[in-house]
């Protein structure tokens, strides 16, 4: 049983691909199917990239921490950044129209929400932004 895995990474885009491969391996080990595992890793990495870019403002000195646990029938990712984003102020974010639609803001979270069975934003015990992504295991 995979329990208590913690991955602390700098907000550096060059590390994203390696972390994605790691997430896929964790997914496969936990029992996610070959067919679904890319969807899982894309969902997790969209949240991670969002944390790096928006939560940590792309500051390489700031870290994103990923806590991974397997529970009975579900795989849980807690993704913490150093930001203090207030989700309640941004609930129902829409992609926008025209120029706003062309810009990339918010697209990653929309994709993650679409792929993940459960994605929610809140605060960790230190009052920083925490995303919770839960993937059911069949």
């Amino acid at each position, binding site marked *: 049983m995979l329990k208590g895995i913690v991955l602390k990474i700098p907000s550096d885009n060059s590390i994203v691909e390696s972390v994605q491969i790691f997430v896929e391996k964790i997914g496969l080990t936990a029992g996610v199917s070959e067919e679904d595992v890319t969807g899982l890793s*894309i969902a997790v990495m969209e949240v991670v990239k969002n944390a790096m870019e928006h939560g940590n403002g792309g500051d390489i000195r700031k870290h994103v921490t990923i806590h991974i646990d397997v529970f009975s029938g579900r795989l849980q990712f807690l993704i913490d950044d150093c930001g203090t984003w207030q989700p309640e102020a941004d609930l129902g974010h829409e992609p926008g129209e025209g120029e706003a639609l062309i810009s990339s803001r918010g697209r*990653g979270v929309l994709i993650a*929400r*679409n792929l993940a069975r459960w994605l929610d934003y809140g605060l960790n015990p230190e009052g920083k932004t925490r995303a919770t992504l839960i993937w059911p295991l069949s």
Partner: protein
Amino acid sequence: MKIKEEMKDGVMVLRLSGKVISGPDLMELKTVFQTAVNNDMGNVLLDLGHVAWMDSSGLGVLVSGYTSLSRAGARMVILNATKKIHELFIITKLITIFETFTDEKVALASLKE
């Protein structure tokens, strides 16, 4: 991701396959779009029939290619987006700017108009 380029009826056809996600391959796709604009290659037909997955970085490169081509007076249309990719276009609302086709002949004809 693999990229195959060909000219068909005067239209540049780009056929992508595999995963259009973050990584070095995406830079290659970006370069292909930029070369098409710089060399005044005209309209682009983007075949996504064999694309299994796409993330926000992949979408970003498609949007950037679309925007660069539009500014250069050219058009980019999409062929054979799979159900999964089409859903992505819907949730991100990009379906409102991308023209999509399921028939290559019809898509090519639309680019000649």
